[in-house]
């Protein structure tokens, strides 16, 4: 089955992102396709490489990056939500006159249309959050 995943909550504050990661990983291991993972609301905070959790805790951001690398996952951070919350890639840095970028490996910033398209293209859209 072709799934898309929506992550609506930030890392560490809420378990939604852990559940989304575990679901995505399990789906891939069971031969399903993940069309896209879309990060919205505070979920965009999953995409900052500046995250530095204690060493005895899971690294939510790196875990996504590694999964993306392994499975060629398309991980999209919503641009409107990202701008509000300071998640910035090279293009956004230049466009908005910022002096830094912080997007983690494997993530890309794009529009909400990517979420709608994921819904259209996938057999199931699974939303993680409250």
């Amino acid at each position, binding site marked *: 089955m072709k799934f898309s995943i929506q992550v*609506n909550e930030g890392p560490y504050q809420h378990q939604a992102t852990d559940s989304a990661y575990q679901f995505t990983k399990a789906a891939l291991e069971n031969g399903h396709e993940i069309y896209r993972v879309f990060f*919205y609301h505070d979920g965009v905070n999953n995409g900052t490489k500046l995250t530095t959790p204690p060493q005895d805790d899971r690294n939510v951001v790196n875990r996504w990056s590694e999964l993306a690398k392994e499975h060629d996952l398309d991980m999209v951070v919503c641009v409107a939500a990202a701008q509000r919350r300071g998640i910035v890639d090279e293009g956004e840095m230049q466009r908005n006159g910022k002096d830094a970028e912080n997007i983690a490996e494997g993530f890309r910033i794009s529009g*909400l*249309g990517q979420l*709608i*398209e994921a819904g*259209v293209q996938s057999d199931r*859209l699974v*939303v993680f*959050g409250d």
Partner: protein
Amino acid sequence: MSEDIKRFMYINRRAPHGTIYAWESLEVVLIGAAFDQDVSLAFFDDGVYQLLKSQDTSGIETKNFSPTYSALGDYDVTKLYVEQESLEERGLTLDDLMDLKWEDEDDDWAEKDSIRLVSRAELKEVLEQQDIVFSF
């Protein structure tokens, strides 16, 4: 209905302010409207507060985005299901909500109500008919 049109439902269960979910949900609806899908919105629990008329956010210094709901008709978003029980539980009636209209081009541009008052049981039926359910 063409095969590549899906039924999209946006569920709104939270108050308009306090968290950003309601506003960012509306942003998805507006973007999604460009995709020519079959779109419905549902408002229940505290989500019914999103449609209150005469909202004034000046005291909390946040953006009052409630006028945007009036524009949904122009985006062909014309089905806003409001749950009767949620209104009653909060001491509200339809008269407390914005008078949202859309113009039906297939009916000589007649103005029609966008808000559809439904019971909890009816809303369950509506939700069961959807292909994609976003929950905010």
